[in-house]
């Protein structure tokens, strides 16, 4: 077991005026660990995700990230250049709507290759080869490499977005309702794919979802949020099989049984 957490979050709060976005959130995320943040709309889970991924500045608190050189750096004290570099190399962000995370008017191959070019790869053949391998990994046929994502189905777009994010071997991936707008059968395929990739690559991930089945399948650990507060956290199967808080019990008992 690794001795150092990848991310150390302490006392993170975000206020919108007098309204609470999220309040006093603290946790450690360990290498290879998948954390699910669940809660209903407006519970603050997306605010938390945006703060953690530095897309939003928190009102108080700090987040320390374990850089590849072994040092801990406070995310909110980094320069914007460093943060953006981190975001396109060591991190990934999978948006609920693939159009937010993809360039819809450039080919699938270029979508995957962009991060490589951004870190200085200048060999077309190699970039294309890597893109081909990644498309295969996310189960997109090689002959679609020159097609634009506009011509892809929702599930394919989401898989392409995942490939685009993982091509630089990030260590931390943020996911915002990754299966949100997808059909159930497409969801299952995507979840299985993500689960496999996370295992194979040893990724750490923070997955925001309102779908407890997604949390059960993907995550090791879970945080339940309500009104901006983390009300319960623990091992995923513990929280789902033995929920302690009234709200968690309500959530778990609201799952539709098939």
């Amino acid at each position, binding site marked *: 077991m690794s001795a150092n957490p990848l991310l150390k979050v302490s006392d993170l709060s975000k206020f919108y005026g007098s309204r609470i976005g999220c309040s006093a959130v603290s946790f450690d995320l360990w290498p290879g660990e998948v954390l699910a943040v669940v809660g209903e709309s407006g519970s603050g889970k997306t605010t938390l995700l945006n703060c953690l991924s530095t897309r939003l500045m928190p009102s108080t608190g700090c987040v320390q990230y374990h850089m590849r050189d072994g040092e801990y750096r406070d995310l909110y004290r980094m320069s914007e250049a460093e943060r953006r570099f981190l975001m396109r190399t060591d991190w990934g962000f999978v948006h609920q709507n693939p159009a937010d995370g993809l360039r819809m008017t450039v080919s699938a191959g270029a979508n995957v290759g962009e991060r490589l070019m951004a870190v200085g790869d200048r060999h077309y053949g190699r970039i294309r080869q890597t893109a081909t391998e990644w498309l295969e990994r996310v189960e997109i046929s090689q002959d679609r490499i020159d097609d634009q994502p506009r011509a892809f189905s929702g599930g394919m777009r989401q898989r392409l977005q995942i490939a685009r994010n993982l091509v630089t071997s990030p260590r931390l991936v943020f996911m915002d309702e990754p299966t949100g707008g997808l059909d159930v059968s497409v969801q299952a395929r995507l979840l299985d794919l993500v689960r496999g990739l996370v295992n194979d690559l040893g990724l750490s991930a923070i997955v925001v979802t309102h779908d407890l089945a997604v949390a059960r399948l993907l995550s090791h650990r879970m945080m339940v949020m309500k009104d901006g507060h983390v009300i319960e956290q623990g*091992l995923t199967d513990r929280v789902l*099989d033995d929920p302690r808080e009234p709200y968690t019990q309500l959530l778990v008992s609201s799952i539709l049984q098939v």
Partner: protein
Amino acid sequence: MPTPLIVSEVAKSFTMHLRGGLKLPVVANVSFSVASGECVVLGGPSGIGKSSILKMLYGNYAVDSGQILITHADKTIDIASADPRVVLDVRRSALGYVSQFLRTVPRVSALDVVAEPLVARGVAAEEARERAADLLARLNLPRDLWQLPPATFSGGEQQRVNIARGFITDHAILLLDEPTASLDAANRKVVVSMIEAKKAAGVALLGIFHDEEVREAVADRILDVTAFSPRKAAA
């Protein structure tokens, strides 16, 4: 003989907030231990809390008080208070669990479901699959099912996949929740011999077996869970 599993004064209750905070005591003052090479069987009528005890030991249920001490690689860990990642590590390296029902994952083949605990411990995928195949063959699971996801299997077939998955590792402690419930006589015999092999290898086993024949065959001693019933304690 070392004692890898010690349970001390554990109590557990459920609070049903959706039913006005109704408090349901499950067990209280649970204390026992299981030594290496021993198979302890939990006894008592249904609903007395046998499955709950296994789930607490596995970290699946939280406990109200008490300790669940697991000794592995010269370290003792209290499952009742350990961090999630510590619990996961113990599950990966020392603590196995064969549940009554298999939780299936879409698109993963039966063979890979069985091999997964080994792969998680760093065994090469090919070798893990070979050992998984050996176990599935031993449990008489038809070979043409191996490459299929178990979601559509019958209860007995799923249970055999589940048993193979639980037995594939050399974990020091194995929890068994009615592993033979939906098996025929021949396969029950196979499971009994597999349990015997685990005992011989020095694994500490704790199980629930409703089948009397199997229980007689494997149990070194029977622990009556009625003794831990809080209702009895209150009386």
